[in-house]
C-alpha cells in the first residue's frame, strides 16, 4: 500500500479520464462501445474499445494497464527469494508454474542442479498448477457462452487440486515453494495417494465437460469457425501454448526445449488441432488437462527418494551473466531473462508472459466479428489479466 497522498490519487484519476479521451480518436460514424474495465467477459480489468457498426465490430483494440504493478521495476530492488515470493502473483491461476522458470534461470547462472527428487516434485506441482488453471478455463468458456452450470463443476473439482497444492506447499494460490537449488519442504504423508484419487476425479470432470459442452450442438455452432487464427499469423504475433497448438503448430516447450524437469522421462502426447478456431482451442485444452492427469499419475509412481535441496550458500549472490529459461506454462510460454551483475539483487529481469502476446492479436482477429463473438474469442484465447499487465 504505497503512501500516495489523496491529491496524487485524484491527479492520477483525472489523468486516466484525460487519457481515455486523448488516446482514442473519436469517430462519430460508428458507435464506440467500451467493454470493461469492469466487465464479466474480461477476466479482470481489461478494457476493450470496440467500434461497432450495428452488431458488427469495425475495429477493436484492448487497452491494458489497469493492473500494471511494475514487476520489472520491483525485481530490481528485491533479493532472489523475495522475487520468487513476488513472481507467482503474475499468473495467479497457474501458481507454482510462475516460479519455476525464474528459479531455473537463476540455477543456470549459479550452475547449481537440484537433486532428482526435487525435480520430480517440481514437475508434479507444475502439472497440478496446469490442471487447476485450465480446468477453470473449461468451466469459464461455458459461462462466457451462457451455460451457467459448467463453471460450478469446474470450481467444485478444482478445489480438490488446490487442497493438494495447499497441503504440500502451504499456499493455495501462492505456494512460494521453489528455492534456488531445490524446494522448500518435502511431501507430507499420505499426499501421494490423495493426489491419485484427485486425478481420477479430474478425469471424470473432463468427461462431464465433454458431455456438457464439447458435444453440444449449440456450443459447436457458437465456436466452430469463430476467431480463426492461421499458423503463420499465430507465430508472427508470438501466440503460445494451446492457442498456438490449436493453429496446427506442433510446438511444446515441455518436449522441445531441454529442461532439468522430468517431462522427457514420461510418455505423453502433444495435442494439436488444425482448425485454429475457438472450438479447436477449447478441444486442445481439454485434451491437455487429461494428458496432465496421466502425467501426474506416472510421476507419482516413479517419484525417486532422496534429498530435496542441493548445497547452496545461505545468502545467495548469483554470479554475473545473463540467462534465459522459458517453460510451457498453463497459459503458454513464460520466460525470464535475468541479467545479473553478481550482487544480491538481479540487475534486470525481463518477464516474457504468455497472455501479453496472446492478447496482442485481438485487434487482428476481431475485425468484422459480431458482438457475441468478441466474448467467445476472448474466452477461447484465455488470458489472465496479471499476465498481460505484469
Amino acid at each position, binding site marked *: 500500500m504505497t503512501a500516495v497522498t489523496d491529491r496524487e490519487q485524484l491527479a492520477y484519476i483525472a489523468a486516466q479520464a484525460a487519457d481515455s479521451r486523448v488516446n482514442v480518436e473519436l469517430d462519430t460514424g460508428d458507435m464506440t462501445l467500451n467493454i470493461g474495465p469492469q466487465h464479466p467477459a474480461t477476466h479482470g480489468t481489461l478494457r476493450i474499445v470496440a467500434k461497432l457498426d450495428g452488431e458488427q465490430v469495425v475495429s477493436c483494440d484492448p487497452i491494458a494497464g489497469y493492473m500494471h504493478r511494475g514487476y520489472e521495476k520491483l525485481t530490481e530492488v528485491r533479493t532472489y527469494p523475495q522475487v520468487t515470493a513476488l513472481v507467482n502473483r503474475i499468473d495467479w491461476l497457474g501458481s507454482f508454474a510462475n516460479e519455476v522458470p525464474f528459479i531455473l534461470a537463476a540455477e543456470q547462472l549459479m550452475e547449481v542442479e537440484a537433486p532428482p527428487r526435487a525435480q520430480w516434485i517440481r514437475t508434479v506441482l507444475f502439472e497440478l498448477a496446469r490442471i487447476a488453471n485450465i480446468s477453470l478455463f473449461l468451466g469459464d468458456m461455458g459461462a462466457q457462452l451462457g451455460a451457467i452450470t459448467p463453471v460450478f463443476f469446474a470450481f467444485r473439482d478444482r478445489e480438490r487440486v488446490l487442497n493438494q497444492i495447499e497441503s504440500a506447499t502451504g499456499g493455495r494460490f501462492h505456494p512460494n515453494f521453489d528455492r534456488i537449488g531445490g524446494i522448500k519442504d518435502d511431501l507430507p504423508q499420505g499426499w501421494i495417494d490423495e493426489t491419485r484419487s484427485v486425478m481420477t476425479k479430474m478425469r471424470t470432470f473432463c468427461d462431464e465437460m465433454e458431455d456438457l459442452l464439447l458435444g*453440444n450442438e449449440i456450443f459447436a455452432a457458437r465456436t466452430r469457425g469463430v476467431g480463426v487464427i492461421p499458423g503463420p499469423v499465430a507465430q508472427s504475433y508470438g501466440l503460445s501454448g494451446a492457442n498456438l497448438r490449436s493453429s496446427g503448430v506442433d510446438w511444446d516447450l515441455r518436449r522441445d526445449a531441454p529442461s532439468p524437469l522430468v517431462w522427457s522421462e514420461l510418455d505423453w502426447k502433444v495435442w494439436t488441432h488444425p482448425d485454429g478456431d475457438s472450438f479447436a482451442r477449447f478441444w486442445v485444452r481439454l485434451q491437455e488437462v487429461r494428458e496432465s492427469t496421466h502425467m501426474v499419475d506416472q510421476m507419482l509412481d516413479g517419484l525417486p527418494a532422496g534429498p530435496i535441496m542441493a548445497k547452496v550458500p545461505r545468502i545467495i549472490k548469483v554470479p554475473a551473466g545473463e540467462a534465459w529459461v522459458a517453460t510451457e506454462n498453463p497459459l503458454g510460454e513464460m520466460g525470464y531473462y535475468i541479467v545479473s551483475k553478481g550482487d544480491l539483487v538481479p540487475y534486470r529481469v525481463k518477464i516474457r508472459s504468455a497472455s501479453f502476446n496472446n492478447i496482442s492479436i485481438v485487434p487482428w482477429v476481431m475485425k468484422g466479428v459480431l458482438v*457475441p463473438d468478441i466474448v467467445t474469442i476472448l474466452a477461447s484465447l484465455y488470458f489472465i489479466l496479471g499476465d498481460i499487465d505484469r
Partner: protein
Amino acid sequence: MIDPTLAVELAYWQQTAIKTLAVMLVIPAGALILGYVFLMKMMAFMQSRLGPMEAGPGGMLQLVADGAKFIQKEDIFPARADRWVFALAPLVVLISTFLIFIVIPVGPDLVVESLDTGIFFALAVSSLSVIGVLMAGWASANKYSLIGGLRAAGQLIAYELPLVLAVVGVVIQAGTLNMQGIVAAQAEGEIFGLGAIGNPFILTQLIGFFVFLVAVQAELTQPPFDMPVAESEIVGGYQVEYTGFRFLFFFMGEFGTAFAFAAIAAVLFLGGWWVPGFDISDNALNWIGPLVMLAKIMLVAFVIFWVRFSFPRFREDQLQAFAWKFLIPLSLFNILATGILKVVF
C-alpha cells in the same frame, strides 16, 4: 352465477373483485414458487450446491427477503433517461403477464372469463411485453440496454410466429379456441379406442408441444435464447439501468410469464385441470382442479428450467435462422398433418 365455493348469490362486481384479487395473488405466488423451487433449489442441486439455506427453513424466504431488499432500494433514473418511458416500461411487461391469466381455467367454474377466443386472446396479449422491453431498452439511454432492447425486439417477434402456429395444431384438433372447450376436448376424446385416459394433446401433438416449448423458452428470453439479457456480453441488456422495485417488476414479470406460459402449455397439451376418472362437470374438480393444474405447471416448468441451466446461448443470427428456417416450417408441417388427420378420422 352461483359462486360454487361460497354458494351464495354474489353481485357481478363482487365476483370480478374476487377474481382480480385471486389473479393479483396468483402471479407473485407463482413467481415466488417458480423462483424458489427452480431458480434457487433445482439450479443449485444441478450444480452440486445447496442453494440459499439461511433465510427461512431451507432458504424458502430468500425471495421474500430479496423482494424486501429491492423495495427499499433507491429508485435511480439514469441522467439522460426518458423519464416517463423509463418508468412505464416495467409496468407494460407486468400488465401483459396479468392479462394472460384472465383466460386460464383452473376448474370447471374457476376461470376469470371463459372467452370464446381464449387462447387467441392469451397469445395476443403475451406479445405486449415486446413493447415494454423496447421501451426499457430505449429509455435507459445506455448503449448496452439499447443493444439488449433491439435484440429482444428481434427475438420476441421472430418467436411469436412458431408460438402461434404450434397452438393452431391444438385448436384444429380441439375444434374450439375456448380454453374450457380445449380441456373438455381432451377429456372426452380417445385415441385408437382407448378412452380411459382421455386424449391429452401431447400424445397427438408432440411436434406442436416441442415447438411450443422452444418458442416459450425464447419468449421468456431464457438460455439458450437469452441474447437480450446476455450477462457476459451486454451485462443484463435492457434491465441494466433498473434498480429497486422497477427491477422487481421485471423479475416478477419474467417468472410470472414463465408461470403463465407453463399454465397455457398445461391446458393445451396436458389436459388442464381434468384428471382421468372424473366426469368433466363434476363439482369435486373445482377443489382438486387447481392442485392438478399446479402439478402439471410444475412439470412443464421443470423442463423449461432444466433446459435453461444446461445450455449455452445461441448467437443472434443463429437464433433468428433457427426460428425462421426450422421452427416455422416444422409447425406448418404439423398443422398440415393435423388437418389431414382431422379430416380422415
